[in-house]
């Protein structure tokens, strides 16, 4: 995979995406394009469709309308080029696996169910563990890690998988300041490697520090662009000041 050449096709293109939960659309006809090598924040109130959009991009929800393309190729359903990281609470940390075992899971996606796990694969796992600074905890069971280390283990798994698009659900939630700074630096490192990172985020004060680009959502796409251009009071008001769409409300008289 070429890295660095930021041709127009080196991007994620989303066109006319609609996704529903229980027949109520949570994400309506969204279209946007983001180039690789960036950190993108999904911003919006609870229920705005941030997690829904992430899951839909990861191939976990059926698309009602619209399509995705990555690096100029259409994407349907799940692909190993995308790595989805759920919220930390969603995971059974007592599972019998060490950090290394967890990172190897990313490799299995490339090796396949029956492929030989070669020394090349072991090297890829070593590299992923090293780049996420997990060497000292490699053989720890995953529940004996701090929140930041758990987050990094999943990022290392995505690296071992050779994913190019990282879909993170609230990665900064529950992390203290030094841990946040560390994660931010690591995400910047991924960005420099040409990866595309899309993360839902709710702490508006840290947005300019962490992200290059923002997408404001509230059922619809409200604004999208570089932080310097679209991250301002007016858009924040438009995204957070409007009631969340539930599909059942009748603001007008019948």
């Amino acid at each position, binding site marked *: 995979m070429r890295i660095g050449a930021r041709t127009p096709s080196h991007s994620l293109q989303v066109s006319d995406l609609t996704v529903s939960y229980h027949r109520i659309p949570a994400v309506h006809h969204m279209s946007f394009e983001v180039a690789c090598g960036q950190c993108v924040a999904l911003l919006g109130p609870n229920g705005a469709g941030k997690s829904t959009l992430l899951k839909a991009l990861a191939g976990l929800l059926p698309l009602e309308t619209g399509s995705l393309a990555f690096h100029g190729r259409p994407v349907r359903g799940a692909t190993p080029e995308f790595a989805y990281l759920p919220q930390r609470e969603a995971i059974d940390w007592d599972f019998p696996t*060490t950090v290394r075992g967890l990172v190897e899971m990313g490799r*299995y996606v490339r090796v396949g*169910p029956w492929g030989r796990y070669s020394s090349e694969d072991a090297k890829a796992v070593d590299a992923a563990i090293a780049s996420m600074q997990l060497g000292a905890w490699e053989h720890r069971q995953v529940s004996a890690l701090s929140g930041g280390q758990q987050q990094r283990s999943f990022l290392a798994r995505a690296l071992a998988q050779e994913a190019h698009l990282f*879909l993170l659900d609230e990665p900064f939630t529950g992390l203290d300041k030094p841990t946040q700074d560390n994660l931010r630096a690591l995400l910047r490192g991924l960005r420099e490697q040409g990866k595309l990172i899309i993360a839902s985020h709710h702490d508006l004060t840290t947005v300019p520090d962490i992200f290059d680009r923002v997408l404001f959502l509230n059922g619809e796409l409200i604004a999208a662009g570089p932080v310097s251009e679209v991250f301002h009071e007016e858009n924040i008001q438009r995204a957070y000041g409007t009631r969340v769409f539930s599909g059942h409300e009748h603001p007008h008289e019948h």
Partner: protein
Amino acid sequence: MDWLLEPFRHEFMQRALLGGALIGFTNGFLGAFVVLRRLALMADSLSHSLLPGLVIGVMVFGLAPQGLFLGALVAALFVALGSQMIARSSRLKEDTALGILYTVTFSIGLVLLSFVKVRVSLMHYLFGNIIGLADSDLWVCYAVTLITVPVLAALQRPFLLTLFEPNVARSQGVAVGALNLLLIVLLVLTMVSSLQAVGVILLLGLLLAPAATIYMLCDSFPAMLWGGGLIGLVGSVAGLVLSNRVPNLPSGAAIVLVLGVMFFVAYLFSPRYGIIGRLVRRRHLHEESLARWPKDRE
């Protein structure tokens, strides 16, 4: 030594030991998946739904073992897949759907049982009788072991991804739904094959105890599978020998008791996750904590 080897000389015991070893290994191996996927409740419900299946088998086919096998299989699959269907198509969760379906099925079995006069031979399926293992039962054990263990071992990687985090697995292209279904089908097959040996009531212990034991001892998925199988095998053989040596000790109960003892030993004495270890090892690490600061403050 001779005392221990004695049971191996009789043909009926050899057959029982072989059957016990196969069933023990298969259950222990499969048990790891059941424990990690939290299917214990499902397994319990399925074991109870085997009984009505047996009654229906007797009614339709008479006492032929193939008919009983088929009846149990159909009833368990009905409960397993039916509860999945109810859980997916309504707001009910799977545990409730299972609870309703298996008690209804069990009641149907009880009602039917009052019309069929085979109570005595069915009792034998409640608690099992591994000494009475016939050649046909042994063939069922071979077949189920040769299907279950190789299939699970071959699909170990996708299963590992699914058991750890199904959403992430699905986003990587793993067929999570199909794997879950396959697991339930293999679970039903294994349970039906264990019926003759340990019976409806005790087969849950044979399934869960080895996996729970090894779960207390290791942090590796492959080790959990093969270790669970090994514990199941050793426990079953030891239980059988014990029941043969101690007069009037029922074989199914002896097997589950041996496995239970192994579990409690692991629960108490596991080096990493045992209760005793946690009490003994309660060091406060205060020196280590203080060592983080530079010494020059004194």
